[in-house]
């Protein structure tokens, strides 16, 4: 093990701000992107379903 | 070939009826060249150093202002569609429009640049290098700009979008154009830079009309 303690790991030899600033923002943006594409899919499914419903002349309260 | 010159002549005549647009771009170049020293300070040695960059960026921005006009008017009144349907090659007609654009928006900048260069205390050789560089570079700007103008034809917010699209593509011309003057000023000689600019201009002249025509067809068929 390179790290003597958890504190050492987070400190990264004094470079903690830069290392975690890099990995942290990367992880954050990737998480945001995943969230975004999932939301995009949900909206697409909802919109397709809504249009399909109106095409088949269903009542507006088809979602219970 | 006569179709080519007919289009050039037509565009020039039409532009002469709206002189203000042409003059505005030239005026913009003059104003920008004056704004920078006001922002940087009057120290002449500093100004001489930054002059090539400032004048090139100014020319770049000024020539970009008028690109929106390149195809817009003809698109609006249906002339562009006629050109696409005509037996003449659309690439040739587009090349003619680009030439007209350069004569109206590029050439005046080339002629004006040495005058503005005097404000920055550039030497005579430096002014020559600047002028020749812009003579090679402004056609590149018109040629690359035409592709952007064709892609953004009729799109909302087209002008600003056009700038965002083509400015990255302008970077090589800017680097070698301003670099030529800097090389001349530092005694290294601008031959290499100017040769590269000439090569870029040639490549752009060969490819741009064709790519722009393809982009116009995409815009027209939708």
């Amino acid at each position, binding site marked *: 093990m390179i790290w003597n303690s958890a504190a050492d790991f987070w400190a*990264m030899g004094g470079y903690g701000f830069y290392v975690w600033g890099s990995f942290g923002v990367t992880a954050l943006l990737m998480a945001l992107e*995943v969230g975004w594409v999932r939301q995009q899919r949900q909206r697409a*499914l909802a919109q397709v379903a809504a249009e399909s419903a109106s095409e088949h002349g269903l009542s507006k309260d088809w*979602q219970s | 070939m006569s179709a080519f010159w007919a289009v050039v002549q037509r565009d020039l005549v039409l532009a002469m009826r709206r002189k203000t647009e042409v003059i505005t771009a030239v005026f913009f170049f003059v104003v920008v060249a004056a704004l920078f020293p006001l922002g940087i300070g009057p120290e002449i040695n500093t100004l001489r150093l930054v002059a090539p960059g400032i004048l090139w960026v100014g020319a770049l921005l000024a020539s970009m202002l008028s690109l929106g006009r390149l195809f817009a008017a003809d698109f609006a009144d249906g002339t562009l569609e006629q050109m696409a349907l005509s037996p003449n090659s659309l690439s040739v007609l587009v090349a003619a429009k680009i030439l007209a654009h350069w004569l109206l928006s590029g050439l005046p900048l080339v002629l004006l640049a040495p005058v503005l260069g005097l404000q920055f205390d550039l030497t005579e050789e430096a002014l020559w290098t600047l002028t020749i560089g812009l003579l090679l570079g402004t056609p590149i700007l018109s040629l690359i700009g035409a592709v952007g103008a064709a892609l953004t034809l009729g799109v909302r917010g087209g002008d600003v979008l056009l700038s965002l699209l083509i400015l990255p593509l302008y970077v090589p011309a800017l680097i070698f154009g301003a*670099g030529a003057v800097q090389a001349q000023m530092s005694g290294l000689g601008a031959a290499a830079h100017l040769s590269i600019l000439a090569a870029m201009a040639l490549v752009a002249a060969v490819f741009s009309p064709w790519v722009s025509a393809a982009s116009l067809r995409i815009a027209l068929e939708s």
Partner: protein
Amino acid sequence: MNKIFFHYAAPQNFYALAGRLWPWVAALASALAVWGLWLGFFVAPTDFQQGQGYRIIFVHVPVSWMSMIIYLAMAFWAFLGLTFNTRLSGMMCRALAPTGAICAFLSLWTGALWGKPMWGTWWVWDARLTSELILFFLYLGYIALTNAIDDTRRADKAGGILALVGALNVPVIYFSVKWWNTLHQGASVSLTQGSKMAEIMLQAMLIMAIAFWLYAIAIALYRVRSMILMRERHAQWVADLPEIKAQFKGALP
């Protein structure tokens, strides 16, 4: 081979294929990321010049490579789309763009965070970073153009031309920026300077790069499925999809 190509060129079939593929790609990406991070943080030794700060390369180099590879992939799909006029190629190109832009941004961000402790400034006008900045602008331009055009086919094709023109210009831009940078040496520093990299560092970097690549593929496959749904929404096969029918809780069409 051709038959497979034509089979999956149909959005309906590609939708199903992408749906089956992306979970596996994502799982593989996650596994490689865990492995790469473990190597990078717990196996790779301290760099004697840069201390622990060098570990940023395990994210900086992969995202930089990816920003360029994704742009090449976009150019590939753009070329296919313009040559064969296939709808799916245009969609794949657009599906990749956001991830590529994010990678370009992260390359600049992590590059700045690496540069500050190492060379004292947040930004250095070296050839690679400056080219990366221009690449970021190219991504933004592509996204802006495709979003601004309402007609989806026109947007696809116009974006395709832009992507190709950009891709062909990238070497020219890189070369000019390199020239520009070497002529103004002065305080310029290269990000590759430093001690020769240990085997283990290289290995961790490579594994992280592949992990990012797989992540980009998974995201693109997932994203393209939403695009297919929206574009093909009037088709019967879409209405028959279980996930669409699931939207109708209670009432049946």
